[in-house]
């Protein structure tokens, strides 16, 4: 599982490595990370990236680096997240600014939802999304997920979006 690679029409998702640190550092040190986590400094960004990398070693799955078929440049992270203390297994996505607006987030996250159910054999999956992050709400809904208001959340300002099993999700575009 550690060498897992997912491919979609336009994207290749691979395990992240040291070459992806700089894009991650820029992201978590910028305003773009306001709904994720601001790193106080580069040291914290470095340590957070260590955790992203090591999640694979500890859990056997983790966040993929999003790349296109053209080159190996990382455009963001998408994938499966379940560190100690998380309530439910999560599908997460972080897109670097240069990759926005092309539908990459949807394409990558859709592949990860399918992977979660079909390969990792999860029986359910959620995405924790902060209040105000309307673009992520929209992406979750486009993926077929719905705001599960009854679910226990990790923090008061996080909505729990629940992903239905691929066989049960609504038709695309009907959300």
């Amino acid at each position, binding site marked *: 599982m550690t060498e897992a690679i997912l491919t979609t029409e336009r994207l290749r998702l691979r395990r992240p*490595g*040291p070459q992806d*640190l700089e894009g991650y550092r820029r992201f978590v040190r910028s305003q773009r990370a306001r709904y994720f986590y601001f790193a106080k*400094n*580069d*040291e914290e*960004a*470095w*340590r957070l*990236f*260590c*955790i*992203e*990398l*090591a*999640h694979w*070693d*500890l*859990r056997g799955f983790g966040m993929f680096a999003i790349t296109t078929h053209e080159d190996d440049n990382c455009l963001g992270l998408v994938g499966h997240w379940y*560190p*100690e*203390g998380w309530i439910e297994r999560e599908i997460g996505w972080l897109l670097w600014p240069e990759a926005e607006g092309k539908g990459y987030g949807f394409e990558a996250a859709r592949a990860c939802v399918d992977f979660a159910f079909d390969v990792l054999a999860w029986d359910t999956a959620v995405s924790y999304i902060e209040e105000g992050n309307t673009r992520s709400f929209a992406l979750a809904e486009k993926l077929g997920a719905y705001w599960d208001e009854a679910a226990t959340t990790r923090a008061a300002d996080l909505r729990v979006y629940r992903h239905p099993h691929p066989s049960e999700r609504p038709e695309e575009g009907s959300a």
Partner: protein
Amino acid sequence: MTAPVLTTERLTLGPLLPEHTDPVAAFYSSERTDFVGGRKTPEMAWRHFATEIGHWTLRGYGNFAVTETATGQLVGLVGPWFPYGWPEPEIGWMLLDGFEGRGFATEAAERARAWAYDTLGWTTAISLISPGNGPSAAVAQRLGAWLEKETEHERFGPMQIWRHPGPNALRAGDGQ
């Protein structure tokens, strides 16, 4: 990068594995963490342990899981350590509860230092030790290191920098 397996008379130094998460978390919930950043919740301990593993991926080296060869028990984490923002590459050691006082830290750190010198090509190494951590300072002394200066770490506060004898000095026997 996965850690190699190194051995000493009594110890095996190897990769950090998922099964080490619980003993490390137990250590970080105890009072023995006064000199290494303080107590951590299981969630924070997991993140710290993940950072140790990610360090290997980013640097190509890091702390080894040190087990007692005879029993297979995890004794502690020892090894070369150089996270972003560290003053210099260091040899660090931390023993789990119940494994102190038997020379394990010295034995493992000496092996890890030799690996850093011989394989990583380090020409010098420090160890950062909290003032007041007498047992750790004693390990540094047994390794031939000397107190070079005090520094202030942004997050950990005042720290002593102990300087290890370099590879040439060790070969010449000056460091013992």
